[in-house]
């Protein structure tokens, strides 16, 4: 597997009042293409900040972030937005579906950023919903779906534009064990069958077992790697 994501000497701090809080101090990370990585660690260890940096929703103070050979740390807000739309699919803990849209309309959202025709968008949406086994729920609104089904719609939304990277923030944090395992199996399938690179932040060791390796983050540094 080749290097896909590389963080080199990344520093990130936040300012709270007059106090500067360092999150990462010269953090280094390499994730090969097609990897399924779980990131674990206590609250405040920097898991979500790392996900924000990897997804281009936040910027580092210094260091380099490269994605498939493309340096993104210097991108403007607009460039990062366009880059995210092309390359990254997001899966959230609370699904973050638009309540007034149907499942199909929610899944279609990332495709509205492309130049695909309406017919082509419809076909892609159907394909994505079939992958998560929810084609029969295409016309349902989120409130008419169970938590597990909503998360599968969110997964379909994340993969519909065929991004190279999936970022998952506690994707099973709001689900029971059985439903969580279904969701994690789906992610595993996407990783194995479609070659998606997946980075998943989780507190749940059971969830982490579905990943190919687990990185343990504490006080802004990786302290352990388990495979």
């Amino acid at each position, binding site marked *: 597997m080749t290097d896909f994501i590389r963080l080199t000497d990344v520093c990130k701090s936040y300012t709270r009042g007059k106090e500067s809080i360092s999150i990462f101090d010269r953090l280094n990370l390499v994730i090969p293409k097609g990897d399924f990585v779980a990131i674990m660690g206590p609250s405040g260890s920097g898991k*979500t900040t790392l*996900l*924000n940096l990897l*997804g281009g*929703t*936040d910027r580092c103070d210094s260091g380099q972030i490269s994605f498939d050979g493309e340096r993104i740390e210097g991108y403007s*807000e*607009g460039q990062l*937005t*366009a880059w*995210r*739309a*092309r390359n990254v699919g*997001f899966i*959230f803990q609370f699904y*973050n579906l*638009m*309540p*007034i*849209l149907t499942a199909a309309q929610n899944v279609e*959202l*990332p495709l*509205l*950023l*492309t*130049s695909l025709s309406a017919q082509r968008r419809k076909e892609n949406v159907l394909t994505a919903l079939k992958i998560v086994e929810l084609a029969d729920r295409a016309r349902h609104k989120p409130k008419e779906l169970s938590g597990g089904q909503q998360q599968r719609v969110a997964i379909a*939304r994340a993969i519909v534009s065929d991004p190279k990277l999936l970022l998952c*923030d506690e994707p099973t944090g709001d689900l029971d064990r059985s439903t969580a395992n279904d969701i994690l199996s789906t992610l595993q399938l996407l990783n194995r069958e479609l070659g998606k690179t997946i980075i998943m932040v989780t507190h749940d060791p059971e969830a982490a077992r579905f990943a190919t390796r687990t990185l343990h983050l504490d006080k802004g540094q990786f302290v352990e790697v388990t495979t």
Partner: protein
Amino acid sequence: MSLLNQTGSVILMNIRSIPQRLWMSLATVVSIALVVAVLLGFLALANGFSQTLKGSGSSDVAIVLRDGSQSEINSTLTREQIVLLGQGPGVRAAADGGPLVSAELLLIVDGIKRSTGTKANMPLRGIGPNGLVVRQQVRLKEGRMFAPGSNEIVVGAGLLREFSGFEMGKTVRFGAQTWRVVGVFEAPGTVFESELWADAPVVQSLFNRGSSFQTARVALTSPAQLDAYTAYVGSDPRLQLQAQSEQTYFAAQAERSGLLIRYIGWPLGVIMSIGALAGALNTMYASVSARATEIATLRVIGFSGFSAFMGTMCEALVLSTVGALLGTAVCGLLFNGLSASTLGAGFTQVAFRLQMGPELVLQAIVLALVIGFVGGVLPGIRAARQRPLLAL
């Protein structure tokens, strides 16, 4: 194309989610509707008043007043001057072969307003046989004209709508004299409908006016004769009078009075707009706040800040447009065509009907859209600046 798609999609999402903020959105719609209704009401009032005054004048009738007089009420003309006025160039001939000149008096009398039950000034006009001939737009609707030399009056239909006690056959008292109503005339959309008419010599006698008049209406053979006639009146040292077309005279009065109403209406509209704007801002900030996670999620997915801005802006514009339409409908139903009266230039009541018209509706809708636009800009900027990482 993608910018259009994503912007259109966000706009639709915003608009379709309005029912989730129903009461707050309704409050904004109602406040904007109130602004529009009040402003339109005032503009319709001014417009109706102006149209009535403007519609009263003919271009081929010269109205002659004492030099320096602004209105009929403070003008005086002698019988000798009336004779000289009939000798001017371009004067049309009456049926009896003499000049078609109507020498008139205008006095203020009291009447009881139907709407308030209080006393208000009404114009009593003394006219001669030519009075009706120079007013082509007037026709008797009921009864007959007053008989010369009698204490009889005919009443304008507008005055009858606004004042009580002037119905056909009734007897009314002005000062020490009683008068009997023998006819009702109408002259739609003119100031004459707000007047009482009686025989000029009787009015002169009963109101101690001697042989003087206040104004003369001179019918000309064509509007083109006006300049020559005006020059004649202005140049004869025996006259010391001023002539102008009746149309010009009423247009000037309409301008003065209409402006006054507009000067009240617009500031009131603007003050109310500030209140409505505060409501709109509040609603839109609440909208952005309620949809913070949705907006952030869209931004994470790759939607632009511009689309988030446009979504909020269009929601504000939709609410203000609905408010504008509601306000227009309310004003149209309640006020348009409503009969009203106000003080005219002669300190007497002028009856008229409120007239909205497309131009006024457009002005009110533009004001509503300005409220919507300003109310949407700042919340829209907040939406556009929503940090995408919030969703995580």
